């Protein structure tokens, strides 16, 4: 019943002077949640440039963790290190550890493909496969992994419902994925990630290219997803972090400055740099 208090739809006209409204949590959730992932002194480079300088960050199970910080602070890189996507870029390098259920995913014996099958990702720019229909986009992950689902139609419907897209596309499933609007494409990409039932869902500024209405839909969705998934979201939009995240990490120049409950970060930040950033004095 406390769900009714939650009002994540504040996107249409964010008032920059007003303090962002934070999420009120149901009481039973206030116990100590499990740690789903954590990084330990994680460092990352692009060529000679060190973009992450030793990040140690916990990611709690069934919670939404937001990573905020000014452009170029390394927040997207940190996210991409969590499912070993950083190393896909030529010249990129990672050191340190990242644990998924106490297994270091950077150990030599770990296959990055297996890691990515367990940790889904949604990108900043919606990237549905242009050669595939909406239906096949949803099933793409399974097909690419060589899995033949026994009842594909059910899976498609379930994932699209979870992504709050089903009603809009149920009659046009055979149309190309790129025929949808930007916001719909992004929700299609979320459905594509959800169909694999990942344990963790990483979202890299998923709303940065979307209008306020589409953003509100995706934010609602993220709030729903935390019931079954662990979500990490990178955002440059502090109101968004305040609306959707249980925990927030503030990154600055490749370092983790502060990590705490979202409420604490926004109301009583300990570090002056965090305060300067959230009050809009730099960024």
């Amino acid at each position, binding site marked *: 019943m406390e769900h009714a208090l939650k009002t994540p739809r504040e996107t249409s006209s964010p008032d920059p002077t007003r303090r962002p409204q934070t999420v009120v949590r149901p009481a039973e959730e206030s116990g100590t949640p499990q740690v789903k992932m954590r990084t330990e002194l994680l460092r990352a480079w692009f060529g000679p440039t060190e973009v992450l300088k030793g990040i140690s960050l916990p990611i709690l199970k069934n919670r939404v963790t937001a990573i905020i910080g000014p452009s170029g602070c390394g927040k997207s890189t940190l996210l991409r290190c969590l*499912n070993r*996507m950083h190393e*896909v870029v*030529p010249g990129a390098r990672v050191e340190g550890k990242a644990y998924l259920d106490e297994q270091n995913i950077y150990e030599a014996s770990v296959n990055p*493909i*297996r890691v*990515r*099958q367990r940790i*889904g*990702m949604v*990108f900043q*720019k919606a*990237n*549905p*496969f*242009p*050669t*595939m*229909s909406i239906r*096949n986009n949803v099933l*793409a*992950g399974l*097909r*690419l*992994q*060589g899995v033949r689902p026994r009842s594909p139609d059910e899976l498609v419907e379930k994932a699209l419902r979870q992504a709050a897209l089903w009603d809009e596309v149920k009659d046009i499933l055979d149309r*190309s994925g*790129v*025929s949808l609007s930007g916001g719909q494409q992004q929700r299609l*990409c979320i459905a*594509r*990630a959800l169909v*694999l039932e990942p344990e963790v869902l990483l979202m890299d500024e998923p709303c940065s290219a979307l209008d306020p209405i589409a953003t509100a839909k995706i934010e609602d969705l993220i709030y729903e997803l935390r019931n079954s998934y662990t979500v990490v979201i990178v955002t440059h939009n502090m109101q968004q972090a305040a609306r959707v995240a249980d925990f927030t990490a503030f990154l600055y120049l490749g370092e983790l400055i502060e990590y705490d409950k979202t409420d604490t970060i926004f109301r009583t930040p300990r570090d002056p740099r965090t305060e300067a950033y959230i009050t809009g004095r730099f960024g």
Partner: protein
Amino acid sequence: MSIHTAIPAHLPARTALHERRRLTERLVGAVLFACAIVSLITTVGIILVLIVETAGFFQEVSLRDFFGDTQWTPLFAKKHFGIWALVAGTALTSAIAVFTAVPLGLLAAAYLSEFAEERVRRVLKPIMEILAGIPTVVYGYFALTFVTPLLQKVVPGLAGFNALSPGLVMGIMIFPTIASLSEDALYAVPTSLREAAYALGATRLATTFRVVIPSAFSGIVAAIILGVSRAVGETMIVTIAAGQQPRFTFDPRVPVETMTAYIVQVSLGDTPTGTLEFRTIFAVGMMLFVFTLALNMVAHRLRQHILKGSLW
């Protein structure tokens, strides 16, 4: 109107200098137009000659004799004008070339674009493109004096002149074209699509064959069609190594003659101009032209379909 071309209204509009500039501009424009029109005039001229001569040919030979016969013996006493004998030669050698070059070219392109390190790619691609610069007469002798004797050891009943050897060598000739253009198409596929596939837990192989290659399909089709047109129009290799015996057959072991090789044969021989025998080459040329035009149109249509996404 941009500020650079605006002439202030209060200045005298037509000074002598202004007039001269205008004249120069028009002259330059005319010269450039003339250059552009040369290609158009040439094309139109060639098509006109082809049409006129072909029309002359068909006044003496009926369409029935041309399309309804499989023997081509215009230079003999007992004349037959069955074009299918030459079409079969072209189709057979081109098909062998395409079946050699397409798999080879696609795999090479996939390797260079998706698997090779940037360093390897930068060395290998230019080397491969050098292959495309070898004069075809060299390929022709390579087919006749090296590939054919080699093939004769493994293929029983292979004649000294045959369709197989020049077909394979033509495949090697068009392979760099197909590989290089396909590689361009693959390389141009946005990284975001590869990342999407990787993030879904796909291997590099699955990403290449199920995401990148389908996304580059229109470019690959264009590359293949270009390769096919080159094979259909290729003259030297087949003239040298396929023999010059028009024959309606799909047996790759026996001598055949392609449309192009026939044109060479008549042009170089002592057939007097203006005779029916001489005019045959225009009729054959017309066929060749229609073929390549049709190929290009198919390619164009295919592209349109793919761009609209209706093939998937």
